[in-house]
Every structure is written in structure tokens, then in C-alpha cells.
């Protein structure tokens, strides 16, 4: 016999199902009057520091069909690389920026939109600076456990070239799946492919 290690086991994931919007974006789904607003609908509560950008994208299944029942969340640092979180110990983040957005996608097309700021650089655990990026989390009917990934920016070549994550990816030909592409002034496109030849790199973090 040995002493037990008294760790608990993480609660198993189950799919968010087809009606995730009832719980997470009820006003979007037509259930009005319960909550004033849908959480995460806006990432700004006032004038924000840094470059304001719009990120658009679509989540595609393995046949190339857009998902119209997904929920996409984004979590990122502010323009100075600080998180508006109780766990942020390096400084105080922009008080007018929440860092967190949630989108149900367009009812007809599935396209998600986040009005946010371009994030600053955040150190990796060893102190090396990471390239500007935002964490994405995708759930939907048919997705058994929420998918983590990151959006980097194609126009940050120098920072991307020294990013601790991007540079450790074995299949460098898949790195572009993590890069948002500029679509004009302050607008980026970041499409997510669940499966197929353009499958996005998803993370075990």
C-alpha cells in the first residue's frame, strides 16, 4: 500500500449541443427579458488604448460547410500585453477593455465578429516574448470537448518568427491556419476549419 494522492478528477466534458445560445447568448436566441444583455457582446466599456480592430471569421466543418450553431469565445491581453483579470500580477490592464468576447455567429451565415484591440506581447512561462495573439475557444453541437486555439496576425512577421509556440510546431506548413489575414484597414479574417486539408491547429493547454 502507498498513501493516496488526493486529487479530484476533472468533470467530463459534454457537447454544448444545438441550443448553447439559449444559455450563453439568450437575447440572441430570442429569449429576451431574462438578462439585460448577452455577456461578451462588447469587449469595450469606453475609450480603449491601442489599435482598434475588427476580427471576422467562420467555422467550417470537414465538408466545408459553415457552422451556424457554434459559440466562439475570445480571450486576449490589452494593447500593453496585460490581462484584465484578477490573476494579472504584472500591472493594471486598460479599465475600458474586458479582454473577453463571445459570439454566436450570424444566424444566416455563421460568421462571427469581434470588435477588439490588437493585443500586446505577453511573455511565455520562460520569459521569452510571444507574438501578439488571442485565445479562441469553440463549442458546438458535434464538438465533444471545447476546442482551444490561438489567432496570431499574419502582418506580425518579425514577432511570429520568434514566437515560442509558432516556432515549435513540427508541421510548419500548418502555421498559416493560426494567422489572421488583413482585409483592409484594421480588419482581419480568421477562419477556423475543424477538419480537412486546412484543419486549424488546436491546442492541448
Amino acid at each position: 500500500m502507498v498513501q493516496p494522492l488526493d486529487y479530484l478528477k476533472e468533470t467530463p466534458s459534454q457537447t454544448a449541443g444545438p441550443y448553447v445560445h439559449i444559455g450563453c447568448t439568450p437575447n440572441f436566441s430570442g429569449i429576451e427579458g431574462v438578462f439585460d444583455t448577452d455577456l461578451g457582446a462588447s469587449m469595450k466599456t469606453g475609450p480603449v488604448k491601442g489599435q482598434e480592430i475588427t476580427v471576422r471569421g467562420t467555422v467550417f466543418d470537414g465538408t466545408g460547410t459553415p457552422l451556424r450553431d457554434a459559440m466562439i469565445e475570445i480571450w486576449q491581453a490589452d494593447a500593453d500585453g496585460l490581462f484584465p483579470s484578477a490573476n494579472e500580477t504584472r500591472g493594471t490592464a486598460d479599465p475600458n477593455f474586458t479582454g473577453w468576447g463571445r459570439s454566436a455567429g450570424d444566424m444566416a451565415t455563421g460568421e462571427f465578429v469581434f470588435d477588439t484591440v490588437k493585443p500586446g506581447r505577453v511573455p511565455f512561462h520562460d520569459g521569452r516574448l510571444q507574438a501578439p495573439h488571442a485565445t479562441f475557444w469553440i463549442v458546438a453541437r458535434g464538438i465533444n470537448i471545447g476546442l482551444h486555439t490561438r489567432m496570431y496576425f499574419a502582418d506580425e512577421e518579425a514577432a511570429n518568427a520568434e514566437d515560442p509556440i509558432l516556432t515549435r510546431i513540427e508541421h510548419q506548413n500548418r502555421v498559416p491556419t493560426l494567422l489572421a489575414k488583413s482585409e483592409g484597414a484594421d480588419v482581419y479574417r480568421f477562419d477556423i476549419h475543424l477538419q480537412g486539408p486546412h484543419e486549424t491547429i488546436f491546442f492541448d493547454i
Partner: protein
Amino acid sequence: MTPKPPGGFIARDWSQHPPALTPPYKTSVKRSPSNALLSFPTSMGEETSPIFGHAMLGDLDNDLIHNFAAPGESAIGPRIIVYGRVTDETGRGVPGALVEFWQANAGGRYRHKKEGYIAPLDPNFGGCGRLITDENGGYEFRTVQPGPYPWPNGMNDWRPAHIHFSVIGHAFAQRLITQMYFEGDPLISRCPIVATIGSQEAIGRLVAPLDMARTIPMDARAYKFDIVLRGRRQSVFENRPEGM
């Protein structure tokens, strides 16, 4: 900054979760990544999460019996209380967590445009609620017990009665969506979505027991549902305050 040991969070135990591809749950076939996930140590982006204050909550946010009902009315169905504690893998409570939940009504019907089940809507039931855990990670809400319902997968598949949960704890690495089932439901063992989890022991941790001690006589039965989120690695070499 002081370098800290890699991997602020304990690595996820994937054996506790369903794999991405589970063909008996047909929708997973074209929505499952086929490449291996990329593993790397967490850093600030995974070790932080947004802040939600109690101030944003309305009085009825955790009462699905009344939060969509007309004044003086209430939702139809078996009245229940769902309560429990959100902890991490080390057993510590997770205070200040945002817990959101949604469900079908007592007849098994969701209030949703794309829902076509013939069971009727309840005009006094919306089906969504939310709360923020207390200083010990505890929570409680009131609702009606949802009904089981048929769904298009196999020719005769029925979902066991369930409540969906979304939890945002102290770190994005802990982000979780799951479903709670009810003790004794014979549909649990017949459900292709439940069966995506390979372990009967793990499935059991999604099944809430009836708690007669917490049941309020002549009012509502109680079901207990504890939720465990991922835990931070503890180290005496890492003198870092734990945020909430």
C-alpha cells in the same frame, strides 16, 4: 520577471473526456479534428480569465421557475433545487466562477427557433439562468426538472433529462461545458452523447443524486452536482498569490 516552472496548470487528463471523433454521435464525424492536438505549457493567456461581479446578476437569474414567468405565474413541472460546489482538482473551492445553465422545459421542449419537437412550449419558462459561485465555490439554483426528448441521430434516440452547464473559473485553461443528468434515468445508459465518454466511472460523475436532506418539504426536491475544474500545479518554489 521571475521565471516560473513551466505548466502552471496540471496537464489535462484526457481519459476523463470524450474523444473528438465518436461515430455513434453522428454530428461529431465531420466536426472532429483529425490531427493531434498541440501540447504546450500554459502562460498568462491560459492562466487568467475575465472577471464577473455579482453586480451584474438580477434577483431571478438563478430561478428558472420565475425568471421568464409572467407576474404571479410560474413554470410548470417538478420543482427542483440544483446545488453543489465548484472546486479544482486539488479540492480547493473556486469562488467567483460564472456558472451558466440552460435546459428544456418539463415536456422536453427547448425555447428555440430550430427546435421542432411536438411537445409544447411553456409560456412561463425560458430555460436559461446564471450565477456566480460564493466564497467557497458553492452554488444553488431553482428550476423545473427537464423532460427527456427525441433527437435526430439514430432512428429512435432520446436524450436523458439533462441540464447544460457552462463554467468560467479563474483561468481560461479551466473553461468547461458539460451536462448534468439525474439519478435513476434509464435513458442515460442508452444515450449516444453520454456514451461518447468511455468510462462508466466518469459518466457517473455527471449524474446528480437526489438529496432528501436538502429537499424542502412541500416545495422542491434537491439534486447535488459538484463540478471539478482543472487545478494549478502547487509548488513551494512558486511564491505567487492565488487570485480569485
